[in-house]
Structures are given as structure tokens and as C-alpha cells.
């Protein structure tokens, strides 16, 4: 009889460590993020703080994210262009703490692409450029209580939810136009890795595998893009169990371009989760398979949905890309909060 409480304690500890192992980051990394966020908030005056802060459960603000530029889709929070230089620097420090080095670079390059688009186009009513990105907090930054960091503008919507030492970026949108540009003499492709890894994977499949993976229909947009919260679809394409070990590694490596946006500890935890479910994860493709052509793909598993959809508007579809990252069981950390 006395063994029962001990067993219960053991099971609770085991469940806690298993959950932590699935998505946790270290206490030091969450402390660093909270410190950076608190430091940014301390640079703001009362009016700015009022603008940037929302309730954790504010459903309207949670839904206020999009691929569209500010001229079409209005965001709330603090506009980057309205911050002083030290405040803007503090805001980017929060992002640097919350994201991995690669994730931070990717986000910065997406924002830079919009600056390039704005300069080449003039922007006008649509409002392109670095100044048109918004930051907001849902809930107060905390190492124990849940909170959300939102950062977004044209072709970018990061919704990073922290629950204690757990974190997720679901749902988040990344996109880019132009998908390739020159900066200080260098060629920049913010979503280049996603594109190259996807073509490498589809071209590693044999004929029978391709027959399963390729949907053979036009995919003109993301199926579960912004505004489709809570929707779920039947997976299609080729199942992870039908891929070789090497191809499964390639699939996970491709997915890591999204899971790896968040800081290293959270990214590692999410990757462990994807590895566990890789046999049940599907890969679907639509469009040509020749490298650098415009093709759609989707990765869908029990705990992840990723889509990549070139947009035909603006001429060359390879130059204008939309992507989405979702966790069907953990949008805005809903899964973490259940536990």
C-alpha cells in the first residue's frame, strides 16, 4: 500500500521530465529572454507601455497577425519606426534572446527584404520597410507565468509563447519578397535554405515515392495560412514510414528551418518531438521538381504543420514566398497550458 504514493510521485516526476524534455529550454535561457524583455519595457514611457501590453488571453490581438503589409492589414502594438534608436536596439535584443542565431538572422533578412522592396517600389500606401514592423506582449514577461511575444509586419508574423521554461513559435508566418537580393555586395536569400533543402528532398525520392508525394494539382496558396487558426486537414503525400532513413533525416533537417527559428534549447526540444513522430509525418509536393522552380510543399505530422507556397503575383513566383508554421496541438502554447 505504501508503494502507491511513491509510484505516483515517480510517475509525476517522470511525466514532468518527459514533458520538459519534449519542449523545454533551460532556466537560464528563459531568464535571459525575460531580462531582455523587461529591459526593453523599461525603456518605454507610460503611453508606449500601454500600447505594447495586452492581456495574455486577448483573442483579438492573438488573431492580429498576417502576411500582408500594414497598408492593408492593421496591427496593434508598438511600431518599430516610432521607437527611439536605443528602444529599437532593445527591441531587437529581445528578439535575439528569444531566437536562435539562425532564426534571428532569418528574421532580420526578411525585414531587410521588405526594406529593399520598399526602396524599389516606393512603398506608398502599402507601407513597406523596416519601420513597419510591430512588437507587442500578451501577458507580462515572466519565467513562470505564460506570456506571448509578437513581432510582425509584411511577410512576418512571429507569435512566440512562453510557459515557464517551455516555448513555441506556433503559429508563425515567414515569407519574403524579393526572395533574393543584394546587400553590401552579398547575395541574400532569407528562405534559401528552406528552398534548397526541399528540392534536395524531392529529388532524392525514387519514382514510386514521388508518385506518392506529388499531389499533381495547382496549389495557389497556403491552405492553413493566416486566418485559418484552429483548422486541421487530412495529411497527404508520402508518409515518413515510406522514406529511407536518409530521407527522414532530410525531412527533419528541412523542418528544422522553421523549428530552429526559436532559441536553441526550445528548437532542440521540438526537434526531439519531431524525431519521435517522423514515421507518422507526411511530405507533399505540388509543382515542378527542377531546382529553383516554383513549387509548393507541406510537412504534416501529429504535432506540426509546415507549408511553403510561392506566390505568382509580382511576376516570378520564385521571388515571392509565403510559409506557415503551426503545431495543431499547441497553438499559442495551448498544449503546454493543458499540463
Amino acid at each position: 500500500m505504501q508503494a502507491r504514493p511513491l509510484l505516483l510521485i515517480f510517475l509525476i516526476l517522470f511525466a514532468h521530465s518527459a514533458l520538459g524534455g519534449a519542449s523545454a529550454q533551460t532556466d537560464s535561457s528563459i531568464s535571459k529572454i525575460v531580462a531582455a524583455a523587461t529591459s526593453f519595457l523599461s525603456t518605454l514611457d507610460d503611453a508606449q507601455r500601454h500600447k505594447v501590453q495586452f492581456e495574455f488571453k486577448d483573442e483579438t490581438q492573438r488573431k492580429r497577425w498576417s502576411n500582408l503589409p500594414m497598408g492593408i492589414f492593421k496591427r496593434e502594438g508598438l511600431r518599430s519606426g516610432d521607437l527611439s534608436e536605443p528602444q529599437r536596439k532593445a527591441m531587437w535584443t529581445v528578439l535575439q534572446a528569444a531566437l536562435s542565431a539562425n532564426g534571428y538572422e532569418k528574421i532580420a533578412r526578411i525585414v531587410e527584404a521588405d526594406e529593399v522592396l520598399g526602396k524599389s517600389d516606393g512603398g506608398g500606401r502599402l507601407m513597406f520597410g523596416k519601420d513597419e514592423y510591430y512588437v507587442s506582449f500578451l501577458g507580462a514577461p515572466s519565467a513562470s507565468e505564460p506570456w506571448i511575444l509578437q513581432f510582425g509586419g509584411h511577410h512576418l508574423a512571429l507569435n512566440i509563447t512562453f510557459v515557464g521554461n517551455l516555448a513555441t513559435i506556433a503559429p508563425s508566418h515567414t515569407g519574403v519578397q524579393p526572395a533574393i537580393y543584394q546587400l553590401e555586395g552579398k547575395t541574400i536569400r532569407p528562405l534559401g535554405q528552406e528552398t534548397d533543402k526541399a528540392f534536395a528532398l524531392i529529388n532524392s525520392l525514387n519514382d514510386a515515392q514521388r508518385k506518392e508525394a506529388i499531389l499533381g494539382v495547382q496549389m495557389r496558396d497556403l491552405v492553413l495560412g493566416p486566418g485559418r487558426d484552429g483548422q486541421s486537414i487530412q495529411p497527404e503525400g508520402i508518409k515518413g514510414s515510406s522514406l529511407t532513413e536518409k530521407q527522414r533525416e532530410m525531412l527533419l533537417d528541412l523542418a528544422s528551418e522553421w523549428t530552429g527559428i526559436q532559441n536553441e534549447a526550445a528548437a532542440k526540444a521540438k526537434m526531439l518531438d519531431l524525431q519521435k513522430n517522423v514515421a507518422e509525418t507526411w511530405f507533399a509536393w505540388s509543382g515542378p521538381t527542377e531546382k529553383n522552380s516554383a513549387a509548393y510543399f507541406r510537412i504534416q505530422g501529429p504535432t506540426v504543420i509546415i507549408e511553403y507556397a510561392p506566390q505568382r503575383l509580382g511576376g516570378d513566383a520564385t521571388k515571392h514566398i509565403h510559409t506557415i508554421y503551426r503545431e495543431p496541438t499547441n497553438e499559442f502554447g495551448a498544449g503546454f497550458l493543458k499540463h
Partner: protein
Amino acid sequence: MKSWPLILAMLLAISRVAEAHRLDDLLQAAFIEITPTEIRLQLNLNPGVEVSDKLIWMIDRDGDRTISAAEEKIFSECLKQRLSVSVDNHPLALEVLSAEFDPPSELRSGSGNIKVEMRGRLSHPLAGMLRLRFENRNWSEMSAYLVNAVLPRNPTIRILKQVRNDNQSLGWIDFSVEPSKSEGWTRTAPLIATALLAMSGLLFICRKQRVDSIRRGNQIDGGGVASVK
């Protein structure tokens, strides 16, 4: 009267939208959910900037630049007329359940969405291997389509395959429905009860015949003994 600079500014704004976003098509994204008793259909319409006025003109019938509840209803019913859903070649009558329209200003900007929920009730519970067919014939000249089966919430339903035409205005969903345990019991319980009753009856008759024959045998034997005695 609109001035030339204003018209030019509007044209310039539209050309900039063209650089960045959906312009000349209406995205129609359909989500189809199969349940044991009905088919649920959610249709989302996202008009591009160049076609939004055409769509708003069809919705805003009195031209007052707002969309009334009555206009939403009329538009949703019109939309329904050019949709078809059938299961194993049996067409379903669709019923509009709800409609959400973003304001005309959002629809005109290219960020707006119209979401219409419908359902088709099934005349009898589904079972076995089945094929659903969906077709959207609304505004084919200006539309881009998406059609997807929703991941079934009911564990007895399995989506086996989705097939679509090239532009996704037409789709087929092959699926299977296993009778649930409770349903199976409900269906088989009368059969089992009848079989048990029949077996009991048969056993009773057999036993009665045996008892009768023993009794008859005893009477014969008794007579014999009596005669021997």
C-alpha cells in the same frame, strides 16, 4: 467628381498591391468535414484587389457600401446554388448554417474574408467504403480554388484518398466508416437475441423429445418386465 490626381493615386496604389499580393483572383478555400450523420462544408472567399469590387457589387445589392444581414443571407444562398456535394452519387441538399463577412473596406483592400458554413444531412448513417464528390462552380473565370478534407474527429471515419482536378474546383474524397462498437451492438443485438431464442427453443424441443422417448422406452421396458415376471 474624382480628380485626376486622385484617380492616378488609386491606380498607383493598385499597381503596388499587384507587386505584393493577390490581385486578379478570388481564392475559394473549401474544407470538408465528414461525420457519421452529415457533411460539413466551410467555404472561405478571399478576393484579390482587382476582383473585390465585382464581388462586393454582387453582395451589396442596395449599394449602400455596407453588407446587411439580409445581403449576407442572399449571397450565401446564391453561393450554395453553384456548389454540389454527393456521397456515393447521392446528392445532398446543402443548408447554410452561418456566414461571417468582413467589412467591404477590408474585402476591397485584399485582406478581407468571407466564411460560410454549410451542411448536408445524410438520410441514413454511413458505413463501409464511400466516395464524396464536391464541386464549386462559382466564378470560375476569376477564381483560384483549394479543397481539403478536414481531419476526421470521429475515430470510425478514415480518409483514404483525396483526388482533385487540376485547379481544385472539383474534388473526390474516398473514405471508410466502421460501425462504432455501440452502433455495432445496436445493430447486432436483435440478431443475437433472435439466435439465442431460436437455440433455446431448439434445445427445449430436443430435450422434450428425449424425455418423451425415455418415458416411452420405460413404459415398453416396464411392460416387458411385467410379462417376464
